[in-house]
């Protein structure tokens, strides 16, 4: 047993933390949020140049071929921002789907470009965001000799506006195919959401969009299995990003209990205020340790599927509630759009749903651990 980061990981952590301090301090984050900016291309390119987008991609396809635990170190620091942009959606998830589902030719075509930041691939599974199983894929492909024609809307696509290619799950024959949709072709339009949704969320409309046969990932109709394998690897990295968010929220909240003086004493001396921070840190550490252990299981080839579902449930729940408890401590000032807590709260709400919310993942965990008998 050894629960510390390796020396290399500790160094990597410092590097990413320095990058965040320099390029994405809280004032930038809140500025981007208020400007509706979901993605800063120059930063994304820097991250690509540093090799952070292809951590899990095999070296043969232009990646670093590293384990999840290294990748998680990076994403935890990015989550502290929370840095918006397709770092996870393309650099981890998009790449994983193509790596799991694509032919060798497709991998050669896409993976190096994703690692370099030249292509940005984001994933659209369900059409309406209510659930995440195969039944949630509603869009149906029309099969034509030269390829597929797609019509319909994929709601709540993360990093939709930044993406150059959409990995779009569609009903196709008896199965589900993953179609690579060029986002710059006619018939594709993206509308960002307003309100409490993260600025990087968008609705993608496809109107008579043609996808050549060569852009169906792997075997037609066989997309779901590849998607499942990719999700199992990618989700823990998203959890690490959420853990980073919790940690940042904790750190600035602890700091506030020291500096904010009310009734003549630092508010951290009030037991009620301490209670909120205790609840906050318990959510953080729940998310942190389940995520850490899950990543260790995956990296060492232990059975991890139920842990991945558990981790997503706990990390999503954790980030959501960590922000709530911080709001209890910050009171009024914490509700100002120029306060970093608002950026985290908003991010926590969208990530709560991303790739399935806690209730969904808890049920997946149970179904995996204790398969239900099929009864009519």
């Amino acid at each position, binding site marked *: 047993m050894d629960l510390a980061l390796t020396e290399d990981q500790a160094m990597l952590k410092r590097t990413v933390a320095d990058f965040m301090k320099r390029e994405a301090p809280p004032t930038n984050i809140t500025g981007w949020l208020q400007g509706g900016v979901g993605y800063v291309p120059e930063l994304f390119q820097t991250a690509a140049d540093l090799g952070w987008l292809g951590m899990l991609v095999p070296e043969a396809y232009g990646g670093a071929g590293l384990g999840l635990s290294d990748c998680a170190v990076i994403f935890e620091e990015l989550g502290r921002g929370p840095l918006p942009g397709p770092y996870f959606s393309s650099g981890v998830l998009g790449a994983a789907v193509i790596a799991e589902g694509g032919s060798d030719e497709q991998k050669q075509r896409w993976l190096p470009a994703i690692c370099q930041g030249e292509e940005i691939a984001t994933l659209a599974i369900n059409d309406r965001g209510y659930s995440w199983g195969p039944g949630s894929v509603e869009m149906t492909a029309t099969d034509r000799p030269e390829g597929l024609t797609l019509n319909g809307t994929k709601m709540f696509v993360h990093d939709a506006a930044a993406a150059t290619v959409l990995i779009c799950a569609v009903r196709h024959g008896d199965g589900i195919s993953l179609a690579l949709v060029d986002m710059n072709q006619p018939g594709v339009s993206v509308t960002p959401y307003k309100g409490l949704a993260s600025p990087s969320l968008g609705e993608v409309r496809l109107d008579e969009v043609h996808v050549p046969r060569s852009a169906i990932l792997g075997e037609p109709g066989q997309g779901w299995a590849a998607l499942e394998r990719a999700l199992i690897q990618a989700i823990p990295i998203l959890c690490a990003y959420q853990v980073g968010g919790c940690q940042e929220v904790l750190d600035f909240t602890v700091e506030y209990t020291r500096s904010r003086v009310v009734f003549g004493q630092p508010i951290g001396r009030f037991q009620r*205020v301490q209670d909120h921070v205790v609840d906050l840190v318990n959510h953080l550490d729940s998310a942190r340790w389940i995520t850490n252990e899950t990543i260790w299981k995956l990296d060492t080839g232990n059975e991890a599927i139920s842990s991945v579902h558990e981790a997503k449930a706990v990390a999503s729940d954790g980030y959501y509630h960590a922000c709530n408890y911080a709001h209890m401590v910050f009171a009024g000032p914490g509700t100002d759009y120029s306060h970093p807590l608002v950026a985290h709260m908003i991010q926590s709400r969208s990530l709560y749903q991303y790739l399935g919310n806690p209730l969904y993942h808890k049920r997946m965990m149970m179904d995996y651990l204790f398969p239900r008998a099929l009864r009519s």
Partner: protein
Amino acid sequence: MDFAMQPDSEEMQVFRREAQEWFAEAMKDGAHLKFSANWSTRENEEEYEFRRNLARKVGAKGWMFPVYPREYGGGGLTVEHQMVLENEIGKYGLTLEHIFYTLARLAVPCIFTWGTEEQKQAFLPPLMTGEVGCWQLLTEPQGGSDVANAQTTAIKDGDVYVVNGQKTMVGSIHYPDFFWTLVNTNPQGARHENLSWIYIPGDLPGISRSPLNLLMGRKNTVFFDNVRVPEFYLVGGENNGWKVGNTHLELEHSGGGSLGEDGLVKHLIQYCEETESNGAPLLEDPDVRDLLADVLIGSHISALWGRRNWWHRYAHRPHGYGGTQARYYSRMRRLVVAERLQQILGYHTLIPNFDVPEAIDFEHAARQGPGTLHGGGTLDTDRLIMGRRMGLGRPTAEQAPITTPGSSEA
């Protein structure tokens, strides 16, 4: 990171086989016993005798305190040996720390850290080898949370301390050989500067006890009436008790960690698989599954934090707020589990099942919810301690002490 709890070097594989064989032999005569939990309401004489003797056997091998030096009764072994041993005894539903009711796990680290060489040689070997048992005495009737307000006095008279006062909510059924006791050695002294720890032999004249019947089983009030304790038994220096207490409380507050598994949850799942309601196993019921998911996750978090604390302890990197965090969380969770049990099993939760070990019995768990919220400190003082250890409202976070010897490689 490496979460593996089974060291698998060649040497450890050999040692594991040795330990397995040893425990198989030592546990043979107890195979029919369904062990009771801490502070049991069901412990019987036969079980007590078995466990009392087992402790002597385990202790004689140095395995009760594997990483402590042999000269004091420890095993002189590595942290890896300790992991193996904890694992093996865990298979029988016991822990190294609680083979029978003794709080050596608290007294030993304090005496080891704070005692003089003569005291260590005199007190530690019998404690570490399971020859003697000891209780911890802190709580007094005027309020257990305010530990520093101890009013049991120990006043120097020549070469003895004369002890007067009472301690309550302490111990268990069988009278101990020693009391590891917090006393006030200077009633006029300033708070935190008037306390001392004294290791009181149980057979001195002037000590009496009266039993308390608690939800979790037997506790006692212990009375000291002009008990004359030789000065040799005062550990860590007169009026230095607040500092010594730091070691004690760090471990009492779960800073020690654990590698154990949650047998209760396994039992619950098994029950839900085997028990039908409305024509289908409970485990098929969607509502039951949702409830079980939360129970499983909570149990997993508790176990992970126990492991985290264990690693921090043996790697000599004490985790500031981690101990109280784990304790607070596990206590809050026990309340939740007690409620979930009633939601799933209904009335059946309220009836004990003597065919299973007490620690995995549902009725015990339901009692444990409210019954163990406060051992060694309340939920509120846990949160206070976490606040200090995180440095809330203070310039810096209070540090946790190192409590345990052993290699720094965990």
